[in-house]
């Protein structure tokens, strides 16, 4: 049964060691791999980890190597960490320079000599850009405005006082302690109510669990003023959780303002970008909350001061306006009395003036009346005297004419009578024939032999008719 055909394991190991050494010697290779199972012994400055290669787009590990770094390798990691701001830890994708070695005690190992920081940075940055682009593309309520993202969570108004807090943290993290310590130790005695929600924030795979935690907070129905998301002291790969799409989306849409304290000194996670307020560390998150509350109290104190100042100003201005009114009333009352006095004085003077003018006017009109009455009578009498004299002259003239007319009339009749008198007729050669004292106008009664008297102008002749002849009277026909 005994089989002596064996060699010591160490002999095999040495043989393998020789083959490996001969095959790889001191050759180094640049390989791309993911880091897992990382531990760091600070005392010896040794990094122990595995480098793995996963299926394209999957989680299945197709290749795994144990690896370690010490000495120059550890120094390269330090440089890497400083350059990237990313701790060398699980789940980071790296480009590393390794040599292959076999050690009888530790087996086949890759020894890390150098690490390309820019590769990892590029990878992370590329992933972040993809995630951010997807957030904007697939969520209509997330927008990129300039360099910043606008999310519903950012738009949530922060209550004036942040006092009821939901804190998301990994259990017993140093960050949580820092946060609580800072809150409780505030200089103004503010008190807070913190509800802790623990998460196993180990690796990117826990994105769903973190998202679920947010859903739990929301569904608790408690009126939290804010959700504080802190991370402190955990593995370096914790950070990548906060670049996760689902986590970022949940944060962006969360209805309670989220304050993050997960940041790296040199980097900002997508969660930070989506959250309401981003602070670098849990301590800063606590400080922000205290400052926020302090700002509120200061505003209160400012109001108090303002009310005090304004009240006192109000008293002063009221006193001044009262004084001004009093002064004005005093002045105006005196002015009013003075003006009334002056008006009275003026009335008195005007009354005196007007009365004198009035009396003067009355006297003047009376005087003019007297003038009218005294001048006209003489004129009237003069007119009458002149009229009288005129009448007198008329009487004298009219009577003279009258008497002359009467004389004329008489003269006319005198002439007529004189012309027609018988004496005048007889003087012209006519004679009167009388018979028996009767004047005859025809010869009818006369006979030859009758005695007649013929009367001439200067004598009367007695005669006897001797003959009587008739004639036709043509002798005196004119």
């Amino acid at each position: 049964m005994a089989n002596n055909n064996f060699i010591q394991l160490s002999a095999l190991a040495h043989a393998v060691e020789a083959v490996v050494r001969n095959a790889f010697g001191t050759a180094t290779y640049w390989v791309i791999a993911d880091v897992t199972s990382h531990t760091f012994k600070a005392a010896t400055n040794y990094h122990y980890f595995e480098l793995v290669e996963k299926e394209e787009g999957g989680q299945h590990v197709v290749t795994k190597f144990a690896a370690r770094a010490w000495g120059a390798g550890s120094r390269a990691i330090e440089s890497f960490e400083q350059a990237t701001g990313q701790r060398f830890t699980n789940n980071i994708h790296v480009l590393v320079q390794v040599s292959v070695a076999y050690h009888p005690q530790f087996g086949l190992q890759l020894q890390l000599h150098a690490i390309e920081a820019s590769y990892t940075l590029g990878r992370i940055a590329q992933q972040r850009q993809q995630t951010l682009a997807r957030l904007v593309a697939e969520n209509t309520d997330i927008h990129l405005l300039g360099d910043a993202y606008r999310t519903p969570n950012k738009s949530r108004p922060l209550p004036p006082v942040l006092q009821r807090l939901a804190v998301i943290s990994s259990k017993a993290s140093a960050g949580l302690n820092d946060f609580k310590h800072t809150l409780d130790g505030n200089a103004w005695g503010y008190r807070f109510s913190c509800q802790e929600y623990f998460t196993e924030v180990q690796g990117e795979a826990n994105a769903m669990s973190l998202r679920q935690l947010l859903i739990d907070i929301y569904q608790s129905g408690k009126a939290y003023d804010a959700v504080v998301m802190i991370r402190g002291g955990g593995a370096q790969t914790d950070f990548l959780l906060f670049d996760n799409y689902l986590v970022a989306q949940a944060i962006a849409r969360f209805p309670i303002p989220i304050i993050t304290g997960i940041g790296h000194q040199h980097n900002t996670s997508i969660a930070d970008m989506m959250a309401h307020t981003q602070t670098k560390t849990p301590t800063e998150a606590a400080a922000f909350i205290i400052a926020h509350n302090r700002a509120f109290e200061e505003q209160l104190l400012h109001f108090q001061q303002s009310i005090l100042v304004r009240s006192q100003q109000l008293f002063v201005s009221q006193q001044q306006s009262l004084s001004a009114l009093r002064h004005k009333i005093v002045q105006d009352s005196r002015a009013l009395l003075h003006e009334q006095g002056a008006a009275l004085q003026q009335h008195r003077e005007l009354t005196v003036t007007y009365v004198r003018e009035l009396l003067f006017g009355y006297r003047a009109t009376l005087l003019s009346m007297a003038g009218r009455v005294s001048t006209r009578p003489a004129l009237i009498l003069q007119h009458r005297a002149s009229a009288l004299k005129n009448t007198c002259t008329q009487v004298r003239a009219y009577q003279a004419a009258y008497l002359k007319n009467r004389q004329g009339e008489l003269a006319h009749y005198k002439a007529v009578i004189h012309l027609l008198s018988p004496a005048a007729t007889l003087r012209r050669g006519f004679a009167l024939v009388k018979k028996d004292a009767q004047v005859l106008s025809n010869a009818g009664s006369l006979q030859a032999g009758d005695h007649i008297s013929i009367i001439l102008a200067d004598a009367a002749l007695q005669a006897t008719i001797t003959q009587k002849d008739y004639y036709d009277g043509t002798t005196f026909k004119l």
Partner: protein
Amino acid sequence: MEQPLSYEAAYAELQQIATAIEDETVSVDVLAEKVKRASELIAFCQGKLRATETEVNKIISQMERGSNG
């Protein structure tokens, strides 16, 4: 001419006589008488006229004296 005869009446009679004579309605028998009467009336009137004139002139001269005096 003893009756108180007025100038008016005398003048009227005179006018009547003159008219009658002119109209040849007066016979020679009474013509002389009429002429005589007319001549008397004329004399009366003239006398009266002169007397009136004298009197009026007297009054007027008195008047003028009065109004000037």
